[in-house]
């Protein structure tokens, strides 16, 4: 038989265990009783972290403009220009694809596709969060999410069209 005071002790120990078990952030990804609000928050967080990584990489690449000068190259911007040229070159150049496909499949475009998706999502969902902070539409949060998602998809297609297709049309016209 276990005395009452002893059981209290044992329960107390296990409480500490389950407590620490519960404070891990993998719970964010555990699927129970979750709505669209939770998913949008999680996506906001992940896109935010991705964009932070991108900003530092971007800083590094544009920093090569300085590197040239400090390394004492004759022509400033040589390293920078070669990096941007490499990023802008087609991934499937000389592999027998049609010219349109070749010009679309550039490394920089693929990066842009992901970057702008993250950017548009983070921005539009940010607007949604700011609306809630102003006290607007808290009870209509799901509808607002879907409306902004549709707007976001439209903006994304428009942005990708302007980045990938329009320059081709302009270049073809010249």
């Amino acid at each position, binding site marked *: 038989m276990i005395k009452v005071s002893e059981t209290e002790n044992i329960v107390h120990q296990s409480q500490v265990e389950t407590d620490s078990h519960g404070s891990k*952030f993998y719970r964010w990804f555990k699927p129970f009783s979750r709505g669209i609000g939770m998913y949008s928050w999680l996506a906001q*967080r992940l896109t*935010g*972290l991705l*964009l*932070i990584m991108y*900003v530092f990489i971007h*800083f590094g690449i*544009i*920093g090569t*403009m*300085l590197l040239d*000068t400090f390394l004492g190259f004759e022509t*400033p*911007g*040589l390293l*920078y*220009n070669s990096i*941007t040229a490499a990023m*802008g070159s087609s991934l499937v150049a000389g592999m027998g694809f049609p010219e349109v496909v070749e010009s679309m499949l550039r490394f920089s475009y693929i990066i842009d596709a992901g970057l702008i998706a993250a*950017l548009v999502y983070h*921005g539009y969902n*940010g*607007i949604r*969060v*700011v609306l809630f*902070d102003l006290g607007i539409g808290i009870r209509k949060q799901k509808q607002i999410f879907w409306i902004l998602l549709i707007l976001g998809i439209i903006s994304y297609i428009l*942005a990708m069209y*302007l*980045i990938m297709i*329009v*320059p081709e049309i*302009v270049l073809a016209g*010249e």
Partner: protein
Amino acid sequence: MKLSPSQETKVKRFIPKHSGSSAFWWVLQRVSGFLVFLFVFFHMVVNHYLTLWPGMESRPELEDGIASFSAVQWKMQNPLYFWISILFVVFLMLHMLNGFRMVVLDVATGHSFRKIFGILLLLIGVLAVIYAFTLNSTILSLG
């Protein structure tokens, strides 16, 4: 309302540590977020579509493409571009590093850690702004 002494210590543990700066950062995160939204739009337009504007295609600086070094140098001549890009970095850093702080503070609860971490991020932000200023003025001086 009377609490037993043991209860009182348990309850006191959950009285949050007052910090007026938390309210400040909350407001700033919203304001800077909105500004970054506008700045990003400007950044995209200037760095992707400038060549599409009438009269721009004949500019010799933009010959090698809009992202080339000569194009960047030419854009940097404009003081508006120079200062807007620095302001962009300022607000981007505020928004970005405070956002990162929010994520980290969710899992890290120690008060002293939070303080040190905040100072560290502030330092990174200041360094980034100095970096942006140095970069811009060096590019300008080369041109």
